């Protein structure tokens, strides 16, 4: 009988094949090496995040002051910020109802037969590169007719729909089935129980999914670059059927222009954008945890 060098417990085992093979030290070494590699990978990812955010913060903070935020081109970036808020708001107004309805269809009506195809459609839509969606909206709405913020919002809405639908569906599935059954047992019509019981119960999740999709849409550059890139940014544009200045296109253009002042402005814009996006992400995460806790109670 072979004796393991480290693990005394093995000696008590009567079955021959289960006895440690004597290379336990090496096996532990391999195991520990792999574990530390996994830790290193996680550390590396966090390090990259810190490095990127630090670069944005340290460079961007120098650019930001009151004039920078409030005035227009060329001293400041106010119109871009307002424009992005406007485009994203319109896109979200279009995307949220559609996304929520698709999620309702999946969780309440689809059944076995239709869940998979609809889910697949959402997955494909979510996986489509945003540049393709941008090209599509360009061909459909912009070619020969001119750019506008509204058209960019359509493209962003196509990007947001699958995100909202999936997030909403996840919380809808968490709504306890006894609530549905109680409503059914009382003879409440299906549509009434959906609108007055199921949707309110999932409201927190719907808001979360919407906020996350807003965060995603605010930073999407490809659609606005193709569909809404001509505005100069010297004044705030409120009419959505005109070209609206916006943040991502401005950052992209400044990064292509390669002038030091332009870079400073781009860092400043990046900082504002990243703060908004991360705040939306963190806020929605907190909201989601709260509503999940509420629901599981």
């Amino acid at each position: 009988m072979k004796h393991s060098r480290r693990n005394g417990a093995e000696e008590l085992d009567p079955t021959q094949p289960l006895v440690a093979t004597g290379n336990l030290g090496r096996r532990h070494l391999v195991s520990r090496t792999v574990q530390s590699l996994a830790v290193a990978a996680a550390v590396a990812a966090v390090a990259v995040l810190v490095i990127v955010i630090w670069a944005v913060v340290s460079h961007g903070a120098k650019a930001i002051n009151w004039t920078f935020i409030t005035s227009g081109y060329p001293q400041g970036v106010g119109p871009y910020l307002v424009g992005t808020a406007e485009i994203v708001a319109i896109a979200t107004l279009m995307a949220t109802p559609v996304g929520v309805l698709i999620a309702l269809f999946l969780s309440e009506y689809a059944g076995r037969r239709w869940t998979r195809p609809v889910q697949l459609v959402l997955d494909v839509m979510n996986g489509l590169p945003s540049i393709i969606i941008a090209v599509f909206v360009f061909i459909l709405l912009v070619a020969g007719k001119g750019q506008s913020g509204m058209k960019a919002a359509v493209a962003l809405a196509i990007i947001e729909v699958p995100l909202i639908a999936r997030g909403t569906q996840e919380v809808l599935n968490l709504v306890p089935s006894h609530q549905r059954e109680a409503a059914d047992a009382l003879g409440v019509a299906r549509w009434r129980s959906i609108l007055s019981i199921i949707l309110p119960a999932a409201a927190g999740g719907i808001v979360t999914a919407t906020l996350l999709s807003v965060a995603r849409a605010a930073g999407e550059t490809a659609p606005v670059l193709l569909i809404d890139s001509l505005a100069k940014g010297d004044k705030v544009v409120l009419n959505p059927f005109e070209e609206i200045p916006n943040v991502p296109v401005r950052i992209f253009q400044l990064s292509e222009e390669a002038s030091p002042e332009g870079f400073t402005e781009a860092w400043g814009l990046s900082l504002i954008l990243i703060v908004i996006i991360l705040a939306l992400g963190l806020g929605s995460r907190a909201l989601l945890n709260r509503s999940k806790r509420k629901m599981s109670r």
Partner: protein
Amino acid sequence: MSVTPPAGAASLKPARSARQSPARRRADRFGDVALFLVCAAAAVLAALVIVLIAKEVFEGAQPAISKFGLSFVTHSEWAPPLDHFGGKGVILGTLITSAMALLIGAPVAISIGIFLALLAPSSVRNVISPLVEMLAAIPSVILGFWGLLILGPVLVDTIEPFLHDTFGFIPLFGAPQTTGNSVFNAGLILTIMVIPIIASVSRDLFMAVPRELQDGAAALGSTRWEVIRGVVLPTTLSGMTAACLLGLGRALGEAIAVAQVIGGSTESHLSLFKPGGTMASLIALQFNSAVSKLHTASLYYLAALLLVIGIASNLLASWVGQRFGGAGVATR
């Protein structure tokens, strides 16, 4: 008895009166049908958008498809003033950058998934998980800008010369250039983008591996790594494949960040350190300045190819997940 929530109590009343009033019953029947139709219409709309996207993009590409046919893929000359368009250079660039992102990103991301799901205590996991997801939330235009101004110079000054000196005999590691805008830079930016996607999916996969299986292996004397290699990785193989395909789809289709750092050349070459181009980034860079109808159509052609690859990788991911994975493995 379950507690009736306020909302449920409120709907008790309409239900009772429904029994009496035929008008209410009619309203309910109508409401049921209407809500179903609206929901179904939304789902159909989504499907319709995808079909419409394919139709429009292919129609737009038609002039280029009929002029160049499939030889578009094998020709490398991209010369808008001469109306010569061949996509080989950017297709090669797309393949190289995506392969690089996946080859570096997938092992790192899966390791992060292992760390988060199996090694880290939950207090650490609850901090690191959101941080990794934050990485995915950084807009591509900002990541690209960072790659252009911060990462590029570092690559040119230190990393590229080192790699060239050490592995220069491989054509991939050719002579470093004076600018940081290179295929290598784009590949690294894409790596940063795919890592959080694959990491969060594989974390969820690993967390779903039944505890008893892992404990069983551990009870038989397996070390931590042997549990992972023998139990966790095999049961989640299909899911990880699907996750990598998702990451690949993201890498293939990323336009903006790549356009910022890759240098915008359409030449067909293998060197990582020279400027290059990808299909998506070329569309982003040249779309607004297309010089001829054929130029635009050729860009649409690239978009059509991207669309086909994108949908194919998505369908493949879902097929792999369904065919080889899912509930069957988890319960077995």
